[in-house]
């Protein structure tokens, strides 16, 4: 899990059966102590793997939206919730809620956010995220080793890396490159292996370089299933090329959906599965 604190923005991402939305009120209250008021909110997640163990307010997207609606201040007048993905029950879906105030400046004009979720990781590659039994080392020390050995370091060599290896397995990494963050989370156990990658950038960035970065990420994990959710300013097509890039890595596009959200821009959600 990760937390990023900017002067006027907070991003918190948790990957267990946590109660993330309960942080909303204390975050808003704490921000008030430094003279800040909430002007925008965006909540996203994929499809629960184990929906039965979700504690309130995470039991369903409907519950989550209800909780957000109840706890957001009244000045956030523009609100929207939607589920992107195939209509059939099967298949990955992407859940998005956004809200903003009159200024609707939730997202900077030129920025994008990419959230990649990968499941059924290659077993050999996933084993690199297990610690050696009784290694008597710190999580920071083993985390650094995992960052190098797995190829995660090569994803963005310019980034300042903050990494940690959990015991007996699992890994988290935050990367800092100027004002931009990236983050990786890995759970490598066979039956529910999962990895995620997220980064932010500008739509004026070199798109080819961005696509090469995605390739590097996928090669670290070689998942059987993968989804890419790209949030861009509406009208921008920075997400284009991702499907072709994934296909070059042996992934087949299963579904694509897009929707516009107040203050957040347009979210494009694409799901892929391996041809293997």
């Amino acid at each position, binding site marked *: 899990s990760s937390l*990023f*604190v900017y002067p006027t923005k907070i991003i918190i991402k948790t990957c267990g059966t946590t109660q993330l939305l309960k942080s909303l009120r204390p975050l808003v209250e704490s921000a008030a102590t430094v*003279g800040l008021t909430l002007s925008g909110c965006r909540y996203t997640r994929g499809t629960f793997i184990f929906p039965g163990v979700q504690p309130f307010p995470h039991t369903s997207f409907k519950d989550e939206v209800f909780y957000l609606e109840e706890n957001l201040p009244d000045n956030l007048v523009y609100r929207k919730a939607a589920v992107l993905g195939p209509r059939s029950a099967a298949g990955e879906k992407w859940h998005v809620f956004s809200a903003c105030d009159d200024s609707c400046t939730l997202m900077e004009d030129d920025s994008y956010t990419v959230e990649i979720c990968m499941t059924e990781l290659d077993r050999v590659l996933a084993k690199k995220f297990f610690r050696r039994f009784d290694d008597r080392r710190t999580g920071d020390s083993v985390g650094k080793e995992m960052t190098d050995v797995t190829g995660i370091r090569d994803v963005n060599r310019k980034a300042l890396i903050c990494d940690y290896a959990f015991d007996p397995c699992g890994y988290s990494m935050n990367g800092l490159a100027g004002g931009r963050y990236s983050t990786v989370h890995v759970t490598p156990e066979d039956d529910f292996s999962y990895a995620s990658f997220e980064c932010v950038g500008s739509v004026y960035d070199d798109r080819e370089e961005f696509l090469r970065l995605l390739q590097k990420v996928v090669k670290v994990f070689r998942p059987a299933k993968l989804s890419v959710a790209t949030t861009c300013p509406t009208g921008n097509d920075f997400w284009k090329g991702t499907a072709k890039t994934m296909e070059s890595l042996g992934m087949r596009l299963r579904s694509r959906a897009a929707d516009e959200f107040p203050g957040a821009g347009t979210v494009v959600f694409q799901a892929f599965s391996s041809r293997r």
Partner: protein
Amino acid sequence: MAVSGFEGFEKRLELYFSGDDPAAGNGLRRLNFYTIEKILHTVQCTVVSAVGNDFFDSYVLSE
């Protein structure tokens, strides 16, 4: 059941704030570590590693 307590797909919450001159005093970065830990406690997380630069602070969390 999630044997490990691990859910898989993360939940992600992004909040934007505004104020008179939020950047002047570094805004949310003025919140002290105790306050952040207290907030994280409500979502059952703790900080295991942290680093910051001129632009933002980053925390790796465990659950």
